[in-house]
């Protein structure tokens, strides 16, 4: 009897049931209204385990429509396992067009990178977030971090950054460097490298963050001030590649991957696969502009 019932339920576009989609949509609007604040949500079961991109998937499936063009990257690459499987899933569940072209996509889901190519006003950028709470490293209880956010009491965070500098001579946060959004909430920008943090500031696109395992949604609206935490005398800086060029294109101004070949030799290649492809095809993609990137030496 149960089997028969299964097939009389109506067709569900985008996998998630309508009631849950509405809940996620309402919470996304709240998240936009309070930039950087983590809104709790239901985080329904998905066909992948929590912590493997369910948060990003919830957001994507709640906002996607039949006319969207979908792109998904994992660590900058369109071709890695997480990206391929989630792309297939979203495509099967919605029938939308998928693309690898950053410029053409209307919804870009990402794990751990912002695309190297600049985003436009019609795009929505969806992040898969493993740990949405920036204060978790300094305070283990949720009720206390919630109170700290409520009172904008971020002293512990500042002390932790100070201690890192005193011990190691630098703030030892590579990915997920804490940022202050709209001068109010401290937010974990999901583990994007420092390289991408300035690109969140005053971005033209809508940035939506989904943390499925931790059941939190948050957002950065377009044209919103996003500042990395820094001291008056110890400033935020992006990764330094010491002027090493990408071995395939000779380009110096992009986030690089380190490759080890079988002969033991080391090569550096641009991390964003679509950006790399465009450079190889001499398409001249337009890159993000920010004060940190502009200081770097340009092309080969």
């Amino acid at each position, binding site marked *: 009897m149960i089997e028969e019932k299964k097939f009389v339920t109506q067709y569900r576009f985008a996998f998630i049931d309508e009631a849950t989609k509405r809940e996620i949509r309402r919470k996304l609007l709240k998240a936009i209204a*309070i930039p950087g604040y983590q809104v709790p949500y239901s985080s329904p079961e998905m066909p992948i385990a929590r912590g493997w991109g369910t948060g990003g998937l919830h957001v994507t499936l709640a906002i996607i*429509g039949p006319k969207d063009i979908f792109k998904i990257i994992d660590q900058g690459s369109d071709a890695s396992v997480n990206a391929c499987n989630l792309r297939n899933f979203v495509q099967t569940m919605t029938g939308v067009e998928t693309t690898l072209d950053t410029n053409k996509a209307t919804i870009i889901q990402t794990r751990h990178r912002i695309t190297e190519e600049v985003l436009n006003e019609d795009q929505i950028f969806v992040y898969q977030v493993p740990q949405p709470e920036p204060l978790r490293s300094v305070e283990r209880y949720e009720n206390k971090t919630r109170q700290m956010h409520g009172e904008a009491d971020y002293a512990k965070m500042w002390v932790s950054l100070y201690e890192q500098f005193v011990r190691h001579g630098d703030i030892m946060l590579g990915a997920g460097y804490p940022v202050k959004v709209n001068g*109010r909430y401290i937010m974990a920008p999901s583990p994007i490298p420092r390289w991408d943090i300035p690109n969140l500031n005053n971005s033209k696109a809508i940035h939506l963050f989904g943390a499925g395992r931790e059941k939190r949604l948050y957002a950065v609206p377009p044209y919103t001030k996003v500042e990395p935490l820094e001291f008056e005398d110890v400033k935020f800086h992006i990764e330094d590649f010491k002027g090493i060029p990408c071995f395939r294109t000779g380009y110096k101004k992009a986030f690089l991957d380190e490759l080890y070949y079988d002969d033991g030799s080391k090569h550096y290649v641009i991390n964003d696969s679509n950006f790399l492809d465009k450079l190889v095809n001499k398409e001249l993609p337009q890159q993000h502009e920010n004060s940190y990137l502009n200081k770097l030496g340009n092309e080969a």
Partner: protein
Amino acid sequence: MIKEIVFDAVFDAQKSFRLLLDAFSHPGTIHSFDPFELNQPNELYKSNVIIALSLFDNNISFHASSSYNLNVENYLHLNASAKIENIETADYVFLNGQNDISNLIDQCKIGDLLYPEKNATIILAVNTLSNDKIEQFDCQINLSGPGIQTTNKLFIKGLNLANLETIKSLNQEFPLGVDLILTDAFEQITVIPRSIQIEIIQNI
């Protein structure tokens, strides 16, 4: 009382939500929903109904009877299946902004510091919204904040200024406050979330 059938709960709701997402992300810009052949009570704008149809379900509550007839509340309840509640506890509040209703707006919930998202979203009906100067407007408001590159100008006709002042005072202590959706007689909407600074310039 008619049950609406032209609004598709899957695809129309998605499309309308995306418009709302865009409106929330770009405060002060003017948006219009697709036209639907709805049979709503005359005093209610269609855009108000579409907001309810695309966002509401039985998990949330709304309030409309302070500004509208009871049949408006029943119509929304029938079609959007949200709970009817008092203005002090409702998640979504439908009000008419033409008269001074600041005492009603004052009663809307604004969330608390631990859970600032537990606030009311006010859907306020006015006469005309425009980004360009219009004839006989009641006020010009300049908006700035997240989602706005520099400032957005908004000209409003049919809005009592006392209402706007009350909303400003509710939104004083960010992140507490109410989110405002303005709807007009030409089925246009614009959104002013609580994160936005409102500067009121009266028409003299």
